[in-house]
């Protein structure tokens, strides 16, 4: 369970990234965060694995306040929260398997990982993860030989290999075309259901949010302005979140289901 209690974050340059956030995310939920550019979506998500540190309030994960974590504690927290990035963030010169194995870093001793002495189970797990996103045949290809969608699937496999309790995805489909976007979202949703991993995704696109989310959180100027199940969301909700009417480019389109 993730619980934001009156969390605020002010960046060193004075920008207010988050303003008095109070949100509780239950285990197994698939939450989509929407909001205009600069609304604080990334800041929200990155607070959870402490890539940024909120300046006040308390953030509880599994009933422990993580804001005081540092060093070993912090790495342990990050080990149980996997992250997916807009630009995949793979090591382009390394092969797919090695990129996926990097998900085990937090579980592996420094010496072992540096000498490439992964346990057999770890390598097996990495291969299994690749299979789950149907990219196992690219095992020994260099990451930069793959298409964007394939790279994003590798990065999902990396997160799976990490065996996290939470998955954070910051605009995972922003660099992909519509069909590939749906494919990636479908994998995320499937993993969420099958492994019961709490998943929080930042999205720009209203139609995708509606299609995949169990629950939608709307943000504007660092504040949560909407929080509710998908069933309660209408076009008007989005207009309230965005503070303007819905436009063509707020939709990804290309949905393969009706």
């Amino acid at each position, binding site marked *: 369970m993730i619980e934001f209690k009156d969390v605020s974050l002010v960046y060193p340059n004075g920008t207010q990234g988050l303003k008095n956030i109070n949100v509780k995310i239950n285990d197994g939920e698939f939450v989509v965060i929407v909001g205009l550019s600069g609304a604080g979506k990334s800041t929200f998500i990155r607070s959870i694995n402490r890539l940024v540190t909120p300046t006040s309030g308390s953030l509880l994960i599994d009933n422990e306040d993580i804001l005081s974590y540092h060093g070993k504690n912090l790495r342990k927290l990050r080990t149980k929260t996997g992250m997916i990035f807009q630009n995949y963030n793979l090591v382009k010169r390394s092969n797919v*398997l090695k990129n996926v194995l990097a998900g085990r870093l937090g579980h592996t001793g420094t010496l072992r990982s540096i000498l490439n002495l992964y346990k*057999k*189970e770890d*390598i*097996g*797990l*990495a*291969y*299994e993860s*690749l299979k789950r996103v149907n990219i*196992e045949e690219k*095992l*020994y290809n260099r990451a930069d030989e793959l298409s964007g969608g394939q790279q994003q699937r590798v990065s999902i496999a990396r997160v799976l290999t990490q065996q996290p309790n939470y998955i954070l995805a910051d605009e995972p489909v922003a660099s992909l075309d519509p069909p590939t976007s749906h494919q990636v979202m479908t994998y995320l949703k499937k993993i969420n259901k099958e492994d019961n991993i709490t998943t929080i995704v930042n999205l720009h696109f209203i139609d995708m949010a509606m299609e995949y989310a169990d629950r939608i959180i709307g943000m504007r100027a660092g504040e949560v302005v909407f929080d509710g199940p998908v069933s309660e969301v209408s076009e008007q909700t989005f207009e309230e979140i965005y503070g303007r009417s819905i436009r063509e480019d707020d939709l990804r389109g290309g949905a393969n289901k009706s």
Partner: protein
Amino acid sequence: MENYSLPPKPKNSLWKKIKTIVITLLVIGLYVWTFTGIDIEWSRVIERALNNFQRVIPKLLSPDWSATSEVALAMLETVFIAFAGSLMAAILAVPIAFLAANNMMGKYLSVIGKWILSAVRAFPDIILAILFVVAVGPNAFAGVLAIAIGSTGMLGKMFSEIIESIDMDIVEAMQANGANRIQILFYAVMPQIIPEFLSYAIYRFEVDIRASSILGIVGAGGIGTMIIFASNNRNWNEMGTILLAIIIVVTIIDFASARIRRKIV
């Protein structure tokens, strides 16, 4: 834990394996050769170091200020050598660079030009200085000539690479205008290359300051002359002064040069 299937082994071609083995063996061989060839008498080195450390280091760190004016003058001469040498090289390098650039002259001429340039570059500056000291006597002008020739090799290479990287479309546009070769040179080629030429020439001056400060070791003038005297006389206080002068002057010139270059490009 569940029973995972392991991924298939990567199939490395035999050829690749052989290549890896051969390279590994070569590298090992090279190092064996190196370590058997070099034998350092550690006992002597350590003994010397223990003896000399007290005698040298404290003196180096307390420079002899009475030598300041002499050192300053020698350092100034070093700057003059570097300046005259770099400028001569910058001018000499231009025609050779055009010769060596494959988009200006024919293919064959450019190969010849490249060969000349790499031949010149293969002579370390100080070897050139040795030759020029024999030719014009042990004085600063031998240093100027050594720097001039040595830098021509490097600048010529840089310049020709710059020329090769220019936008030939503009040249084509001018040709279409009916411009002749000289006009094209001045209107299409020069504007593209001059800032970078200047930038490299100034950078080369930085390098030449360092180079010209040691030429005195073979008699080609500048602060190097004092370095050799100070070391022969074991005058480590004076060596401290010289070292300080080199560090200060080189730092100032590096700094100034970097600023000017940033302005040009």
